[in-house]
Every structure is written in structure tokens, then in C-alpha cells.
């Protein structure tokens, strides 16, 4: 039995310690956001945040996660009350099939938490591990930039807006 802290709630999980977090999120906790894409840490569809860092949940065994803080896209907001980043993805209509999108949002959220107003180059470099096959990249970047610009408007008094 391993205790996991997911989206602010503690869950006692009855699974082998080598089970990747992804399957526990989906099967044991019935969370849909993290997706199986490759199981190899190559595409980012499974991205969640652990202790503030974006990680591949498909290759992270739960044995290393006891006592750590796990956030999934479900922990950001809801359809009724989306988080600022989810709101930005809605406003930019930043999805086609959308299978990669929850992972994209979580990787971007980790960046914005650490650096609320990243530059475009910083955003692109940070998002590099995540793949999108529909070609929604322009809109994903716009959505992230939208939140970054909101942050720089509210926190920076003069002339240092991210582009």
C-alpha cells in the first residue's frame, strides 16, 4: 500500500511499487487527463506535475512518489471554473484531437509556476519534450503566451513584457 497525494487529496493505493503513476491515475483514481501515448517518456501525453516539476507519469513508478505532491490537469480547474491556463486553451481553441493537450497544459503549468512570464524562446524550449500530431503548436504557444502576458502585465510595472 502506497499513499499518494494527488490534487490535494491523499489516496492509499494497492498496487506494486513498480507500477507507473500513469496507470494508477487512470485505473485506480479514474482520472482521464494523463494519457497513454508511448510508455517510453518520448511524447509527453502523460505529463503531470510532481513537486512543481513536469514529469512523464508513464515511466515514473509510484514507489518514488510517496509524500510528494502530484498535480494532474483535473487539479487545475473544471469545465465550469477552468484555471487561467485552461481558460487560455479554450480562448485560443488550442486543440484538434486534443489527446496531447492535458499533457501540454501540465508541462506549461510547471513552467508558469516557476517563471510566470517566460519569453517565447523559453516557452518553446520548455515545451520541446511534448509531441502534438495534429499540428496545433501555434495555438498551444499562443495559449501559454496569453497567460504569460497576463502575468507580466499584472506583476511587472514597466517595459519588460514577454513577447
Amino acid at each position, binding site marked *: 500500500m502506497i499513499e499518494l497525494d494527488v490534487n490535494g487529496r491523499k489516496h492509499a493505493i494497492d*498496487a506494486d511499487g513498480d*507500477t*507507473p503513476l500513469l*496507470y494508477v491515475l*487512470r*485505473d*485506480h483514481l*479514474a*482520472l*482521464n*487527463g494523463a*494519457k*497513454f*501515448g*508511448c*510508455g*517510453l517518456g*518520448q*511524447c509527453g*501525453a502523460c505529463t503531470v506535475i510532481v513537486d512543481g516539476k513536469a514529469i512523464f507519469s508513464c515511466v515514473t513508478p509510484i514507489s518514488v512518489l510517496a509524500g510528494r505532491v502530484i498535480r*494532474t*490537469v*483535473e487539479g*487545475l*480547474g*473544471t*469545465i465550469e471554473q*477552468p484555471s487561467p491556463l*485552461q481558460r487560455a*486553451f*479554450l480562448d485560443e*481553441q488550442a*486543440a*484538434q*484531437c*486534443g*489527446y*496531447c*493537450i*492535458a499533457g501540454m*497544459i501540465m508541462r506549461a503549468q510547471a513552467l508558469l509556476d516557476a517563471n510566470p512570464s517566460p519569453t517565447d524562446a523559453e516557452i*518553446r*524550449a520548455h*515545451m*520541446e519534450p*511534448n*509531441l*502534438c*500530431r*495534429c*499540428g*496545433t*503548436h*501555434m*495555438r498551444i*504557444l499562443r495559449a501559454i503566451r496569453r497567460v504569460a502576458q497576463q502575468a507580466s502585465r499584472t506583476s511587472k510595472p514597466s517595459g519588460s513584457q514577454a513577447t
Partner: protein
Amino acid sequence: MTGPANTARRAFLARTGALVVTFSLAPLDVAAQEGGASKLPGSLDKTPLLDSWIRLTSDGTITVFTGKAELGQGVKTALIALAAEELGVVPAALSLVTADTQRTPNEGYTAGSNSMKDSGTAIRNAAAQVRELLLERASPKLGVPADRLRARDGYVVADDGRRIAFGELGAERYAEVRAKPVSKLKDPSTYAVVGKSLPRIDIPAKVTGGVAYVQDLRLPGMLHARVVCPPGYGARLSDADVASVSKMPGVVNVFRDGSVLGVVARYEFEAIRAMRALATSARWERGTPLPNDDLFAALRALPSQEIVNADRQADTAPAARTLDATYTRAYQMHGSIGPSCAVGLFDNGALTVWTHSQGVYPLRASIAEMLRMPPERVRCIHTEGSGCYGHNAADDAAAHAALLARAVPGRPIRIQWMREQEHTCEPYGPAMLAKHTGGVDASGNIVAWTGASWSNSHSTRPGGAGNLMPAWYLATPFSQPTPKPIPMPEGGGDRNSIPIYTVPTLRIVHHFIPDMPIRVSALRSLGAYVNVFAIESFVDELAHAAGADPVAFRLRHLTDRRARAVVSAAATRFGWEGFTSPRGHGRGFAFARYKNLAAYCAVAVEVAVEHETGRTRVVRTAAAIDSGQAVNPDGLRNQIEGGIVQSMSWTLFEAVAFDSTRITSVDWSTYPIARFADIPDRIDVEVIDRPGEPFLGTGEAAQGPTSAAIANAIAHATGVRLRNLPLTRERIKAAIGV
């Protein structure tokens, strides 16, 4: 064992085939898609009852039905917009049911950019005719002539404000009403919904972790399954340790039928662990070898059927310059981010399959044949999956779900393929070769053009069990049927093979190669991607020979007003005229009308080529698209932006690798695709709306033009012409000779 490998082996052994010659002169353009005199509009022609499309109930509920499926292209939102417009309600007042063999019309496949033409046209007309029926019924009750009544927000309303709810107008009484050929459609200038960008109804769940995909289904009592796929085409399972794997934690069933091997377990990761143990224990007899030395020579050596698609002679001035060039494309994959998935439930002799197949009715027929069940006992329900971009492994996963569900009756069985399986077993976009010869006269006019293309089939979609990959490996197997060419004007390998430009003397031939050494099928835009790449590269080569600007050269040879409009719009938006290239940069342009009868799309790109490494990046893109009446302009823009990025990825990076025994592109490191670092700084898409014009479809329009625009820009930047897709860093470096 059957499947493509066997036909390939036959072919490789034979190597000499009788040349079957057919001669079909296809028209360059097919106009009347809204139907001729007696035809009903769009898919109403096959499913004429209004009630099949629009259903009202006495409580005022309005449900719209479509046989098409949401693939992430936004079709649900667009179809709702059309119905809402004609019924005079807000989109949120409608619910939509998509492809389901028990509930919706049979509209075949959701493919070919045909959904708006087929289903959009049907729903728009059905909604208009239902609205007129409601007005007629309300007329005597309100004592007002029908033509003075309006439908608004679920009521029939008179000028004086009196109104009757739709639900009170005997909704059930139109259930048997057949559609008429002509509808009283709303005047596009009065549209309240259509033509305005509408937020897609499927996106909110996708950004908040809602149940959005077949992968997310959690039915009561559901179990998880995984399969072990053969290590190469035609490999035969000789042994596997079923007994030990059956005892592993959580395992409910180990399935073996011939060479189809799978496990069913309580939890998903238990299924994966058991699948791995099963795969490790499995012993296989090797399948058939793959043609890995000179692929294009091997393909051209196979027997082929010659199809003449254009042949005309004219007396013109002799060519002052004649060029010829050969273009190729490697096998490329759909490469969905989410591996294919399905859920099957076999209960009381009936099977239900939740699937992201593009064609639930053809899939039902195929599964019924495979299981030797009557089709009425099989129901296929489309449930969204990861983007498919054509015929990927969705149907195969559905077949696996059907087989495993029958083995474990009464429990829903969810199967998802692993990444390596998705990469190595899906049917790829075929490798192709196109050869063009053309001449320009002394004044720079194209006078003659000869084109030839060679390709396998671009559709091995299930129309029977033999096109379901798992069925090839059953103890009593089904063989893959010999494919037939898709006739022009749609075409398969010859889609878009006829230049749309003014060419007095023209001969275009397609060589259809039935034998498939590698499994292939429909990949977004079929042969159009390669043919437009070849033709639009060649047009640039001709323009260069004529000393003409590539955009001006195209306009000089285009008469279609709408074609000229998109070419001019893309050029203007890009800033073609005033373009000055920084060192290592180049500009490129391309245009096509998809299938020569659907959407018009022009793309201009600026690339930067790193001289030392050959690495090429698309810096910016401007495109123009005319797909007739634009229903959801932002949805349309999203499709074109995505098409450009995906085509850029195919064009610069993608080729399926294989050795003599198996596919070696097994994951994203062995089959790289575009990443954020490769994404342009900007993509501008101009939507040329044509209110009242027929829907031409959008989903595949950008694939072809993008590829040639990039090749043309690389040629402009480096002075070197690349003709073999993909235009990889290594090929570019080798060509520029550093």
C-alpha cells in the same frame, strides 16, 4: 499466413506481370455536388427520411444525427451550427449523435474532406425542410400563412408575437416524411450562426480531463487487454507460454487463436506485464522478407495496371526548353499520439464495440464477417480517439476488442495497442514515385506535359474481414483482398495527378501496383500529397526555365477565378513581391485545388537553411483557403494551420524505416516528427468565405501545397532542387555539398 506479405512474396517471386491496360478519361471537374435534378442533397440521397437526421420530441428536445465522426477536425460543431441556423435555434439547444450503427445514417467513412459536402449538406437541407414543415403545421393554428411565420428559439413565431413551441406541433408526424430535392434554405446574408467562429463543443472536456475519448471509457466491470503482435508481416506463432502467464497477478484470460495472442486482466498495468511475459515467451516462424535494398526499383518491378487519366494533343509552338524530373516519397505513418484503442462487450450473443474507426458501418460488416455473426448482432459506436489522419490501426484494435470480448463474455474489454505496435503494424501512406516531363515555349508558356505516377493502393479500409489485420492471423485466417484503384476524379495514388494549369498537350498516366510489400492504406490526402509535391515542384522548375516569377507563372496558367484568388491572397499576405531574403533564407510557393474539384489552397513559406548542417526550418507561412461557404471560420483556420504543420513534419522529417525482416521505426526516436523547435514563428491563414457556395471540405487541402512550397523555398535558398521526400537534413546537406 495471409496479408500483404504474401501478395508481396508472390509478386517478388513472379516479378513479371501481365500489363492490364485500362483507359479512363476522367473529367477535370465534377461540379454538381448539391445534386442533379432528381438527386437529393448530400447524404439525403441515400438516407432520405428527415427523421433520420433531425428528430424532435414533444418536450421540445431537438437531436441531430450524423453518420460522420468527430476526429478532432471540429465536424460536430460545424454540423450543429448548420442545423441550428436552419432551425432558428441557438447551437446549445441541439444535441448531436455521431456515427453509430444503431442510431445514425450510414455515411460510409469520415474521410476525403467529404463530411461537410455529404453530411453538412444533408443536415442543412433536412433542418430547413423540418423548419418548413413546422411552419406549415403552425399556420392554421395561428391563422397566419406559413410564409409569414418564422422559427425562433424552438418556437414558430408570428409577427404579432404569438407563438407555438416546436414540441406542440406533432413532432412524431413527420417521422416518415421523405426529403424533397429542393429546400427553402436561409439566405446566407441573414445567417446568425453559420460563418461566425463558434467555440468547438468538444474542447472543454479535453482541457479539463473529462471523458473525451474511447481511451477514457470506464464501463462497469470493465477489464483491460493487451495483445502481442507478430514481429513481421506473415510471421506465424509456433509457441507461447499460456499456462504461466495465466497464473500472473490479475490475469483473467490468455487468448490464443492461431497467431492472435492477447491477455485480459483486472488492471491495465497487469495486462501490460502479462503481455510482456507472453511476448518474451512467444516463438515465431519468420514472415516474408521486405524490399529493403532499392525500394523504388522494387516497386516499379511489380506488376501494375496502367490508367490513363488525361490525354490531349494540341497544335502549339514547339517547346523552347524541356525538363524532366522524378520525385519520390517514402512510406510515412499516421503516427497517432494515442495508440489505437477499443472497448468490446459481448453479451447474450450480441457484440457492441466502441471504436474510433472512421467508418462504423463498414467496420461492423467486417467484424461480423470475422466472427461469423449476423451484422444485426454487431453494433459499432464511434467514440473519439486520438487523431487518426486516415485509416490507422483503429479498426484493427476494434477487431482485437471483438475477439477478446467474445472470449470473455459479459465483461467490457478495453484494449489499447502499445506504441511499438501502433508504429509497426498500422497501414502506412504508400511509398510513391512520380515522373514529369514538360516544355515551355519561347514566350514562357507551358506547351506540353507528360506525367506518370506509381503507387500501391491508398485504401485497404475494412470493407470485409480481410482488411482487419488481426483476421490475417487467426487459425482460420482471412486473406487481404486484392485492392482496386479508387477511380478518378477522386483518385488514390493518382489523386491530384493532373495539373490544373492551362496545358495544351497533356498526358497523365497512373501505374496502380496491387501487390503491397509493406502494409498501406489511406493517409490524409492520399496521393495528392505526393502528386502536388511533384507537380508544384515541377511548375517552379518550369517557371525557372522560363525565367518567370513562380507566382506570376502560376497565375498566367490559371483561368479559374477562385484559384487565382487564393494564389493572389496567399502571395499578398506573405509579402511575396517585396520579399528580400536574408542569407540562407528562401521563399517558396505552391497551390492546389484538392482532388481538382474541392477546396482551393495556396501556401507560401519562408525557410532558413543552416548551411553547415542542412537543417531547415520553416520560419513563417501564409496561406489562403477557399472551401466554399465557411461554416466555422476559426475551425477551418485550425485545420489549415494543423495541416501545414503536419505536412511540414512529413516533408522534412518522416520516413518509415525497415530492414529485410521488419519495420524498424518502432517509436518516436526511430520515427522523428516535428517538435516545438521546428514550428514556424507564424502561420497566417486567410479564409476566403464564399457565402452560399457548396461546401468543399477543408481537412486535407493544405497537405500537398505545403510540401512543394517548402521544397521550392529550399531550392530558392540553396539553388539546389530536392525531389525525394522527406527532405531531411542529411539529404539537404549532401545536396548542397558541404
